[in-house]
């Protein structure tokens, strides 16, 4: 049976290529569309130059709508940032934060988005105050529940309570699947080995993660094994990551409207070795989820010191994996090369 869950891509996934100007917005949208991942999520200020400080040219917004239409895609979410530390030495005042969120609501609506993503550090009061404006623009504000936070953390519970009390259905959650990290990612281990972590310590940290040992004990043990600098940093990743359970989403399904399909690596045989996507899809189906899972490739920063990330191939593999898990019969395939190779690469 085909699932009601839909596939999408956050263009964050292609950052290594877009940063260097190798992939255009059209390349990103066409590639995602060819993979059948027709929901498009963006970080507004990554995709559009000027936002928010000096505004976005209307031609750029027109181009966005033209491409979305041409490739039969759906705008899903505009991830906004709200830089409340814009002023050195003082936090942005509350009213100004609310006004800033309202601007992002309007920008999201201008792009045809259904949702805007709020970073997890934003206070619930700010979002509640902006909710009526979101309702007027038919936008929902979703706070991204992201490691080290999780659905049982008091900060997230405060958000959930504030959302309920507000009575607004324009407030909700966008869980990032990285919070369900069930094994230490191989690309992280390899990076730590490259920067000098002794193999015995690296093996110990991976094992300790598997055994769910409290991070503070792991850090102390690594110190006592003679670990310094990079070894301590590797142990400290356990402070910011833990294997929370996907089923914790079930209590919040009525407010979960988008999913960040975070991944660090999908192997040639279509497995994400550290995030349990089979279990995640099962929980989402059980919870009646009908929104998008948007690919969010974040292995780039873990491998770029050793090799040029191939974001498109990674997204392709994750989309093949997701299509299988969702019971789709067609295998997602890229028909058009995502971008033209540079002259040096072509010569190699």
């Amino acid at each position, binding site marked *: 049976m085909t699932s009601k869950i839909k596939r999408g891509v956050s263009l964050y996934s292609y950052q290594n290529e877009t940063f260097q100007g190798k992939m255009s917005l059209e390349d990103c949208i066409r590639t995602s569309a060819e993979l059948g991942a027709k929901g498009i999520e963006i*970080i507004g200020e*990554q995709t559009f130059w000027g936002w928010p*400080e000096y505004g976005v040219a209307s031609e750029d917004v027109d181009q966005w709508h033209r491409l979305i239409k041409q490739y039969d895609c759906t705008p899903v979410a505009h991830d906004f940032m709200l830089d*409340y530390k*814009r002023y*050195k030495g003082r936090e942005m005042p509350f009213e100004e934060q609310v006004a800033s969120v309202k601007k992002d609501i309007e920008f999201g609506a201008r792009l045809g988005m259904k949702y805007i993503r709020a970073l997890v550090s934003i206070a619930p009061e700010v979002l509640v105050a902006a909710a009526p404006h979101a309702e007027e623009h038919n936008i929902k504000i979703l706070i991204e529940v992201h490691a080290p936070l999780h659905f049982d953390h008091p900060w997230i519970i405060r958000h959930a309570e504030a959302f309920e009390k507000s009575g607004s259905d324009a407030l909700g959650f966008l869980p990032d699947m990285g919070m369900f990290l069930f094994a230490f990612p191989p690309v992280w281990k390899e990076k730590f080995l490259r920067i000098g972590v002794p193999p015995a310590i690296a093996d110990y940290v991976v094992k300790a993660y598997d055994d769910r040992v409290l991070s503070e004990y792991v850090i102390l043990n690594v110190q006592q094994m003679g670990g310094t600098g990079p070894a301590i940093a590797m142990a400290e990743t356990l402070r910011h990551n833990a294997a929370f359970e996907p089923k914790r989403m079930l209590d919040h399904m009525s407010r979960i409207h988008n999913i960040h399909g975070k991944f660090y690596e999908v192997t040639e045989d279509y497995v994400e070795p550290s995030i349990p996507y089979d279990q995640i899809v099962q929980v989402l189906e059980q919870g009646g989820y009908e929104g998008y899972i948007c690919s969010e490739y974040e292995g780039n920063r873990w491998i770029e010191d050793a090799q040029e990330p191939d974001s498109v191939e990674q997204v392709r593999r994750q989309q093949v994996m997701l299509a299988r898990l969702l019971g789709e019969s067609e295998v997602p395939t890229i028909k058009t090369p995502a971008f033209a190779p540079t002259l040096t690469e072509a010569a190699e």
Partner: protein
Amino acid sequence: MMDNKMIVEGSLQSVDGGFSFLGRLPYYRGLGLSMIEDIQVTVDGDVQPRESVRFAVRGKTYTLDEMETCYDNRWNFGEKAQIIVLNGGLSAGNHTITFAVRNRVSYLPFVPTTKDTKELALAA
């Protein structure tokens, strides 16, 4: 992230009173200029004084102190800014340039400094 792509290869050139190269913000998005806390340039081991550094994008040039209170311009994602150092100029030939950027990022519980070192040639 993007550390090794901060300095644009082959971009070193002479300017009036010094030299410049092209630099990119090592980040998955852009940042308003007021959140760029410091840009430090080191040439062949010598740290250049903060006062000698200028930052230019889309025809506008700023001192680092001016950037701190600039709220209407930004260093966009992947945008190549001209980093100018008014040190009196560099000799022709190869120079080792280190480019370090310190950002104030609202959601991070620390203030990251990211740097890149590359050897760049200055044409005679």
